[in-house]
């Protein structure tokens, strides 16, 4: 074989090596982003669980002053298995709603509102809410990056070969979240 053939084979081999390297690197980027998304997802779960626990404690305190109202609010939320982001969003919204209702009840009972334990729980609820927002932003930032990679060429080829699907964002209803804001 002539030198020209070797050169062509060499160039093809080089291009193949570069392509394989790029393919591996891109698929690794997808995997790493997926791990990050899973981490952020677990962060959301932790924050949601903490929110639920705080809400339950607040309901326990409220029950001492307004048993009926507390029981009604308790009936609207239940701890459930959260498999999808949509379910998590719904659960979060139901907690938001319950928080708003607890605060509305507390407004009617000044002794409850001025209770030290209730105040501490309000601060804790606010802090957990901040952590949830942080986890939500981290998750959405990673999902945004992931979805952009999936749809943009040439990474979309790798994504297609790996059968990757766009992921859902964790939606937050800001109007309802504002209900939870408290002031001293």
């Amino acid at each position, binding site marked *: 074989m002539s030198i020209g053939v070797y050169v062509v084979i060499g160039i093809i081999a080089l291009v193949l090596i570069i392509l394989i390297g790029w393919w591996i690197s891109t698929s690794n980027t997808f995997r790493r982003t997926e791990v*990050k998304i899973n*981490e*952020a997802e677990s*962060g959301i779960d932790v924050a949601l669980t903490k929110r639920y626990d705080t809400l339950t404690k607040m309901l326990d305190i409220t029950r001492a002053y307004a048993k009926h109202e507390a029981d009604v609010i308790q009936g609207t939320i239940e701890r459930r298995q959260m498999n999808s982001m949509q379910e998590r969003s719904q659960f979060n919204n139901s907690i938001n709603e319950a928080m708003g209702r607890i605060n509305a009840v507390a407004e009617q009972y000044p002794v409850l509102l001025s209770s030290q334990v209730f105040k501490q729980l309000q*601060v804790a609820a*606010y*802090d957990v809410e*901040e*952590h949830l*927002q*942080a*986890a939500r*932003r*981290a998750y*959405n*930032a990673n999902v*945004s*990056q992931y979805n952009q990679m999936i749809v943009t060429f040439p990474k979309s080829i790798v994504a297609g070969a790996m059968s990757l699907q766009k992921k859902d964002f964790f939606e937050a209803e800001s109007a309802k979240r504002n209900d939870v804001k*408290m*002031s*001293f």
Partner: protein
Amino acid sequence: MAKNYQTNDVYNEIDRRKRRKSERKADPRVFFNKEGNPFLGFMHFLERIPVPPKPIDEQRLMSDFIYDARKRRSINFGSLLVTMALVIIPTIIMCVFPFLFISRVSPIAIFIITVLAILIIVVIKMVSKSKKKQPLNYYTVEDYKNYVVHRAIGNEVQELVYEPYFGMPQSVYKDLGVISLGNIYRTEDLITGKYNDVYFAQSDLVVEYESGSEENNDYKIVTYFKGRWIGIEYPKKFTGTVVITDNSFAHSPKRKDLEHVELENINFNRMFTVRSNDTHLVYYLLTPQIMERLMYLRQNARGNVVASFKDGILHIFINNGKDSFEPNRYQVDLMRDIQNFKYDFSLVSGVAAILNINDNIYVQHNEEPPYQQPYQNNPMPPMNNNGF
């Protein structure tokens, strides 16, 4: 062992070199008190002994400073006279002597005549000075600065402390690892107190790297940082580190222990690089509002901005190449200095407002500690009709 520093104590530094040496080696955590103003922990390393407070007599303070300014101006005038004498007298000799038919004047004669003329000028000045019998200065420039600080912000800042010789401790700076370490470290004009329920501290800081020697013609000095350090006790409790570096700042060390975190704000990412050992913490501390306001600070501070969240404190470094608090000692103007200081302080108060942590839920407005008297060595006299 560290002692509890009280805000109404007055200390007099006894050995600055020894203190700086121990400051460099100290564990950075000891500089922050766990209760009350965390920045008062800085005082533990001042190695000072209590001295009676120096009462401020405003008239005397001003007369001392005006006298000091006159003295400085007269010294300048004196040196100008001597310089002129050095140039003019030999010229006169060179011009006049030929007319006096003295054809050759030796350089030694010119030198002797010139020196004699200068000596006569100096003696005349000394005699005229001794006749004036001016009193010795009782107040120092530090007393003046202390006074200006209290007059400017004493009403809005609680538990105000001004320490002219102290600032951001070197071991804390080193521990933060946000700006390169140099071999020259200067810090001064520490001001700390409580503004809008938030404890803060600020000081001037210069970090430089000196290398080579003049003999080898390779002497150079590189300024890594010149500007202001601001520390704010952050209301959110956290452990971990978040470092925010200005992308246009060249003297930040590479931190391999921290991971780069891309935030959702594209403009913020263009302006700053964020690194942390906890991604969740980045999103927890850098809320969209705070990001917007850090960008605002970057655009208005006229310099690079580097920030770091560490151990419950937000550290902000503003590299604007300025020495923030140096009164003009040649022309004393109290009201101008107060206004200048108020303007300088607006950067700190602005940061507190910008970061929107004053009215944060974590600050317990209804559980304030008992009122503490402000720094006792400089009780603020009421303003008189002259504006003082």
